[in-house]
């Protein structure tokens, strides 16, 4: 009897711990589950200071320096990455395949948002309102394709070229 009530206490305590600021773990999040010795909690997110910051999405890219004119080397490299990691789901036109077509994306989104979305995909889908709206439309979570920072930047350049920037 003593054992049972004790176990129940342990379980209840565990439940309490869990409910403190933890979010359910998605099957395909990049982050591995925490170590045995650690409580399963995630740090609380600071609220974005302004609407402009919110439009940059969540991730490490807070400012992205744009080129003028476009960097042709970056475009070429971005095209290679697009063909291997992106083209399966995204057309260069405005037409939706699995995900939305890329035409006009650099008009719709800030460069920081794009960079954050393609590198920090899971957190963005979980928390960014614009990304969540796209999930409702497409019904497939965009795969995290583990782009390097350079790959992401080159893809952005390729998107800008695709949108007719010079």
């Amino acid at each position, binding site marked *: 009897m003593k054992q049972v009530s004790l176990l129940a206490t342990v379980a209840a305590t565990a439940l309490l711990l869990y409910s403190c600021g933890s979010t359910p773990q998605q099957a395909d999040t990049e982050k591995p589950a925490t170590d045995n010795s650690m409580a399963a909690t995630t740090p609380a997110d600071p609220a974005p200071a302004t609407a402009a910051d919110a439009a940059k999405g969540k991730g490490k890219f807070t400012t992205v320096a744009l080129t003028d004119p476009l960097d042709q080397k970056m475009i070429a490299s971005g095209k290679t990455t697009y063909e*291997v990691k992106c083209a399966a789901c995204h057309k260069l036109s405005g037409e939706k395949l699995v995900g939305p077509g890329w035409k006009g994306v650099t008009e719709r989104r800030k460069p920081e948002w794009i960079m954050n979305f393609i590198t920090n995909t899971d957190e963005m889908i979980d928390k960014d309102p614009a990304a969540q709206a796209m999930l409702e439309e497409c019904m497939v979570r965009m*795969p995290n394709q583990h782009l390097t920072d350079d790959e992401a930047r080159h893809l952005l350049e390729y998107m800008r070229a695709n949108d007719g920037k010079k």
Partner: protein
Amino acid sequence: MLGLAVATTAAMQSCKMKTAATAVQGDAASKTYVAPGKYDEIYNFVSGGFNGQVSVYGLPSGRLLKVIPVFAVNPENGYGYSEETKAMLNTTNGLIPWDDQHHLDLSQTNGEQDGRWLFANANNTPRVARIDLTTFKTMEILQIPNSAGNHSSPFITENTEYVVAGTRFSVPLGSEDVPISSFKDNFHSTASFISVDKTSGKMDLAFQIVLPGMNLDLSHAGKGPSHDWFFFSSYNTEQAYTLLEVNASQKDKDYIVAVNWKKAEEYAKAGKGKKVPATYAHNTYDEHKQTATSEIKNEVLLLDPKDCPDMIYMIPCPKSPHGCDIDPSGEFIVGSGKLAALIPVFSFNKLTKAIDGKQFEGDFKGIPIIKYEAALHGEVQKPGLGPLHTEFDGKGNAYTSMFLSSEVVKWSLKDLQVLDRVPTYYSVGHLMIPGGDTKKPGGKYLVAYNKITKDRFLPTGPELAQSAQLYDISGDKMQLILDFPTFGEPHYAQACQASLIKDKQVKFYDINKNGHDYVAMGEKKANVVRKGNRVDIYMTAIRSHLVPDNIEGVFVGDEVYFHVTNLEQDWDIPHGFAIKNNPNAELLIMPGETVTLKFSPDKQGIYPFYCTDFCSALHQEMSGYLRVSPKGANVPLKFGTGETVTSVAAK
């Protein structure tokens, strides 16, 4: 009776529960409870016995984490069925789809586990495998010639310099046709030493020591002071070849075979060996090409003890010894005579003195026999019935499994007194303490792998899962804290702290480094190429479609190869692939990987194919059609996905 025992145990436990804290300590459930989302402390690698595989459990929960395909085909992920992995199971007798996997050893540096590789033996068709612990994948399999019943394997030396393989069933060397009754003259056992490359882990059969016809049973390497030595238990030194149950149990003592492998290595280098023809397969998996290749080797170096003095000695050991286990200090050699009523413990220090002082009592086929008492540290008296295997806790204690009396017996290495005994359910075989055969055992848990299960779990017809039992050995008394069913028939097992390997895990393969001959690097490269009756389909998979997903212009009698590249670059997003009526298997393709499934349609028809691993909300849509037309039909090669399907013509 059992009910009474349970009641007594419960009563005893409740007596101890004075406070909440002691109650938790005394509570088996809390000791094995790993909360949802939390990790186990320990990886437990367990041999699969007659299923030929290795299973991986978490301890203390006993949760099954993975089955690693090693010596048997595995339809679950296409191992042995995919074109890339067929070569792993190749032997001099072609692809053998099954073996009997008995023992495991984790690689070591300075006598401690280093978390790099896991070695596994195949007992039936002698082979040794190396598994990479960053991918949990079988990377290499080496066949052993001049051997049969590769039982005393794959035990390793202290720095993983060598992996050994010893012959349980003596056989004639080479392929001469001899009468079975000529056993004494023509049959030999061999002790094979396989070198392991320090960096790559690559194995090479360095030399084989030719021994008299007898059955080598188990083995372990020395450590510390006994670093240069390897010890093999033997039985059937009667050299019987029929009704061994009786005829191989005649003598009071068989032997522990003590091999000075350092000396053997020197003799091999000095040219004392003889190179002889022998064919055996060496299979390696190339991570860059994502493909295995099988090479047939043609020669082996034999060392004859006659030409190599001071290399081998026989230590008499009662009676038909099975386990041959070395304590963490390297000083004590425990031989467990499975028909003996005691456990002899030999001293390495005394052994070397006996050799120096030539305290011999004759020879066995030319190999000096050391006087029993000269090498003996002492005997554990009345330990139980049927001692088999011994593990160590690093605190001066040894734990021996007793098959006949179904118990684990804890005894002191120093004074050989029995300290504690606990029952197992039932008929225990191997024991395992994490690191229990290394210089640094973890003294917290012991697992008993039982041969008979009977009433321990819900019954499942005549065949039952084998039971394993977890004991807490951190205190003076062993405490049973968990039963868990296992897969196949576990023999030996290994375990290490999770922290040693968990952070080294490969999560996906970088698509840009995929060097497979048939990779489709992006959907643009998806293609179908015909050469004669061979059709190569370069297919891509990503959530949630396949390219191409419509294929026409394939005919009865064609050999169709689906080379499926998984374009995903995220952890835990494999795609599967299967096609209707294919007498083969399915594939599981890890992110960034290319895997090939062969299909030779012998009937015309429309063959749907699909992803077999639930991958997204639109997984059910991840499918396609192959049209197979009668031979000679006028159907052009056409393939594609979506709107492109009609526009892409044959190339």
